[in-house]
Structures are given as structure tokens and as C-alpha cells.
């Protein structure tokens, strides 16, 4: 706990000194090339991206354009081959060691020998939180993703969508200031997706978290985001960054408004252009 607190102090000092006060992620000219047996794969090239505290940023783009890779670079699961990146003003590795973020993987990645509740407890155990804090957070987050009553079930006894919701609850239970989510709602049906979109938005509005969110759905991206990053493939790069002027306080009805549709159109145009680049 104290390590975490002191990390926050230093981060504030760093923020005071840097040009923009609440910069959470600062990516500069970043490239990443995978060396494979069939030659180099240019997964990311010349990425420039600034994300401030309280931003809700969505990455959208065709499959294979590097969305997951960019998120993994932020999470220090992948090292860039060129350019620079800071998270909370420090290197991604330091940020990771400070437990600065929670990460939701594209697949649920639950441990089959742990019940759902104990899966959610896993990061809390590693962080060394007390038993009652753990219990409280497990209960709260299982309610949030509508999984109450499934505490004692094993992951393989749940549907794919329920497993994915459990993995979201696991990431939220860490209560990180920065949430990295890789297509968290991809496996869910429309209604559950809407519900969780609203829940996530409420959580974000209430707690001033920073969220980086990968999705394939234009409405989802526009509904959730303050900033939409459109990527295009080969090599993976940023095609467009759209700052949304929708109010922070939104509900699902906003999806019918002209402002919403205007942004959705721009995203769609960006995606089209990105695709046609290939031909």
C-alpha cells in the first residue's frame, strides 16, 4: 500500500513539472516490428498519441491493425522497437510494477482451479489486501457485472460471456486509475453489452478513471469515448483521432442524436479509407 501511495506522490511531482498537467499516456513516434521466421512484421509504425487523465479512449480498426499490440505496449507486455512511451510519467515497466493499470484480455483467461470469486480475488491476493477488503470488492464487482450467485462456480461451468464478465470484474476489483480493455464485450449479446457499457460509463464518470478501450463496434466506440483513435493496417498506424464533443454524462438514448451520428460517420469513413488503403 505504501509503495503505491509513494508512487502516486512522485507521479504528481512529475506531472507538475511536465508541460501538460494530467498526462497519463504519452506515446511519441513509437514503432514496433516483430521479427518472425517469415521476415519482419510491422505491427505499429510512427504512433503519436497523448492520453490525459479522465479520458476514455477507444481504438478501432480492422483486424490485425495492431490494436492489441498497442495496448500491450502500454501495459509493458510488449517492448517497442523505436520511439518512446511513458505511462504516468514513468516507463511502462515502472508503471506496471506500481500496479498502475488493470488489463482485460481479449479472452477471459480465468484459472480453472479457482472458483469465480477466487479468480476475482487473485490480483487482490497478489497485492496483499486484507481478507475483508477482498470480500467486499469481490461482492461489489460481481454485482456490477451481474454475476451474483455464481461465486462458487468454476469457470468451465459458465458460458463464454459469463466468463468474460468475470474477467472484467477481476480487472475492476483492482480499482486501478487506468483501465486497459481489449474487446472486453466482444463475446456478449447486445443487451448485456448495452448494460455493461452504461455501467462502465457510470463507473468512469464517478471515479475519473482513464480508460483505453479496444472495440470493433462503431456505436460502442462513439457511445463510450471522449477520443476515438482509428487505426489502419500494414503497417499498423493511426489514421484519424476524433475528439468527441458529446457530454460526459450520457445515456443510451444519445445514440439517436445527430451529434452522435455525425461522429459515427466520421469513424466509419476512417475505417473505410483504412481498408481501401490495402487494395
Amino acid at each position, binding site marked *: 500500500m505504501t509503495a503505491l501511495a509513494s508512487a502516486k506522490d512522485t507521479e504528481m511531482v512529475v506531472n507538475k513539472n511536465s508541460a501538460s498537467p494530467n498526462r497519463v499516456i504519452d506515446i511519441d513516434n513509437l514503432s514496433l516490428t516483430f521479427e518472425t521466421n517469415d521476415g519482419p512484421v510491422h505491427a505499429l509504425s510512427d504512433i503519436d498519441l497523448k492520453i490525459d487523465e479522465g479520458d476514455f479512449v477507444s481504438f478501432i480498426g480492422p483486424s490485425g491493425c495492431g490494436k492489441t499490440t498497442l495496448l500491450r505496449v502500454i501495459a509493458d507486455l510488449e517492448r517497442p522497437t523505436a520511439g518512446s512511451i511513458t505511462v504516468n510519467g514513468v516507463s511502462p515497466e515502472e508503471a506496471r510494477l506500481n500496479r498502475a493499470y488493470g488489463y482485460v484480455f481479449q479472452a477471459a483467461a480465468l484459472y480453472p482451479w479457482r472458483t469465480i470469486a477466487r479468480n476475482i480475488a487473485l*490480483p487482490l491476493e497478489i497485492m496483499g489486501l486484507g481478507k475483508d477488503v477482498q470480500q467486499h470488492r469481490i461482492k461489489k464487482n460481481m454485482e456490477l457485472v451481474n454475476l451474483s450467485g455464481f461465486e462458487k462456480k468454476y469457470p468451465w461451468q459458465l458460458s463464454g460471456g459469463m466468463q468474460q464478465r468475470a474477467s472484467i470484474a477481476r480487472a475492476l476489483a483492482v480499482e486501478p486509475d487506468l483501465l486497459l480493455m481489449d474487446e472486453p464485450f466482444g463475446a456478449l449479446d447486445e443487451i448485456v453489452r448495452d448494460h455493461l457499457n452504461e455501467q462502465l460509463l457510470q463507473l468512469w464518470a464517478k471515479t475519473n478513471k482513464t480508460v483505453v478501450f479496444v472495440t470493433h463496434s462503431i456505436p460502442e466506440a462513439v457511445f463510450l469515448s471522449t477520443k476515438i483513435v482509428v487505426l489502419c493496417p500494414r503497417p499498423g498506424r493511426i489514421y484519424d483521432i476524433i475528439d468527441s464533443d458529446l457530454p460526459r454524462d450520457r445515456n443510451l438514448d444519445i445514440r439517436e442524436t445527430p451529434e452522435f451520428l455525425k461522429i459515427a460517420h466520421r469513424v466509419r469513413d476512417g475505417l473505410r479509407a483504412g481498408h481501401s488503403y490495402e487494395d
Partner: protein
Amino acid sequence: MSTTIVSRRRFDMPALLAWFVVTMVVVGLFMPIFKPDIGVMEVPKLAVCLVILAIAGVRYELGFMRNWIGDVALGLVTAVAAWLLIDTASDYAGEATIGFWALTAAAWAASWLFVERLAIWKSRSQAATRIINLVIPALFGITILVIWQLVVTGAGVPKVLLPAPSEIWVRLTGSVPILWADFQQTFLKAVLAGYFIGCGSAFLTAILVDRVPFLRRGLLPIGNLVSALPIIGVAPIMVMWFGFDWPSKAAVVIIMTFFPMLVNTVSGLAASDAMQRDLMRTYASSYWQTLFKLRLPMAMPFIFNALKINSTLALIGAIVAEFFGTPIVGMGFRISTEVGRMNVDMVWAEIAIAALAGSLFYGIVALLERAVTFWHPSMRR
């Protein structure tokens, strides 16, 4: 249409078995039972045996009482028939001829028919299924013992070649103190000590190898080499190093069990997939936290594989090692000396003990495995 054809068996096994019972009974009726020319009617007990088997076979063929009462009756008839056969065979040891073997075959077919009928009751309830799953292998074992007994006594097989189960049993119950002392020496001391030290040290070595990667290149080949050493070469050396008593046998067991455990644990520790490890990375989990919370649970199916293999290897190792010098106690010692004295029934008594102990040992490890790796797809129910 087609589905009924697919689901039907190609032939009706129970009916076939019942016909076989009836045929064998007819053969038994007209052929001599014992040498020189004794018919079945001259041996009252076998006459009873023949009649009840005939009734059971015909009853099934006629379709009379194909319910649980009929099945229970079939089981009883088979048991009584087997007992009558065993009882008379010992009075005419070595004299059996065609008629006797026909009745033996009839009793065997009746027990098979009984098992076929039991399998039908499986689907009724969970409890029934569980009981029947235990009963069927037990019946199988008993059938083998009965046939062994009948063949050995009926054909008069010399005792040094193969003693009858009854003789082995008599020897076993008559020599409990010796057998217990041997069991203590070989199993409770050499096997268990060697097994736990061997598996435990291999487990710790695997973690060391995992933690210090350059050791992997050095230690794994050496482990491989040691495991390839022939036990008959190693055992005398261990006796020279550790003396005649059980520690030298435990040492042999350690050598035999070390490598399977090491290799399995090392590959088990590598079994977690990239996303699971990435997850731990995002939590900034330490090496030991990742080891205990992810990699060891993931390695458990591999580790239990080695524990099961080693449970049988350990027993073999300890018994064989005793051939190369022991104090005058131990299962391997007893086997080698009693063979020399032609006391084959004692050898078989030791073998029976070893088989029982080995199966129990394996069974306990398998039960533990079930409890620990319940989550693994091969264990889920």
C-alpha cells in the same frame, strides 16, 4: 428406420452366452467327467451343478424372469456352480476330462452372462451405476481366480509350475508374521522412504532448474543418464555404499523415481499459456507468487503423472534391489530364497502382497490426483 438398425447390436450377446451354457451342459451330461470313465451322475455335487446351470441357461433362453429376480438367481446359481466345481475338483486332482471342462466353460459363460445382465441395470440410478462399476471388475477378478483354481486342480498342474489360489491363500494366512515383516522391510521402509525422497528431491531440483536456466542444460542430461543406468548394475553398488539394510534399497528407488519426476515437473512448469503468464505480469506478481498461484497448479497433472508412474517403479526397484544382498528379511529376499527351495506358494504369496500393495499405492495416488486436478478437462464430470 436407420437409427434402430444402428443402435441394435450385431448379435445378441446374452442369448449367445445362454446357448453356450446349455450346449456345454449337454456336453457335460454325455461325456466323462473324470478319468477313467466317471460320468456326471456318479458325482452328486457335479450333478447338482449341471442341473442348476441347465435351468439357468434354459430359463434365460425362454425369456422367463428376465428381471432383477432372475438376474440375482443367475448370480447365485453361478456362484454355487463354481463352488461345487472347485469342491469336487480337489477330490479328483489331475483327473478332469472333457465333461469337467465343459461344466467349467458353462460356469464361466454364466458369470459372463451375469455381468452382461448387470450392465443393463447401470442406467437406473447414480448409486446403482457406482456400485455396478465396482462389482464388475471384482467379478472379473473372482472369475479369473476360479478358473485358475479349476484348471490347476483339474489338470493337476505341478505346484512348482503354478500353485492353486487356494494353496497360495493357505500359505498366505499361515505365514502372516513373516509376510508382515517382509512388507515392513521392503514397502514401509525402502519403498516409501525412497519414493518420498526421490520424488521430493526431483521436485525441488525441477524448481531449481526452472529458476536457474543454465542448470537445465547441465542437469537434465545427467538425470537422463542416471535414469538409463540398469538397476542390476546400480543395486550392488548401492549395497556397497549404504550397506545391506533398507537404505541401499531406498537409494535404488530414489535413482529410479528421480528422473520421471524431474522431467514431468519441468515440463509441467512450462505448461501455462502465454495469456495466463501475461495476466500475472500485469499484476506485477513476483516469481514465487506466479509459481504458487499459476505454474504449480498448472503443473499438477504432469506431476501426478510422474507420481503414478513412480508408485509402481518404486516397488519394482525395491524388490529387485533386494536380490543383491539384504538382511534375512524383505519381499525380494523372500522371493529369491523361496524360489531356490521350490517353495513356490510362498513366492506367490509375496507376489500377491506386492500386487495388492502396489495397486493400493497407485489407487491412493490416483485418488489424490482426482482431488487436486479436478479442474482438468480429463477429470471433469
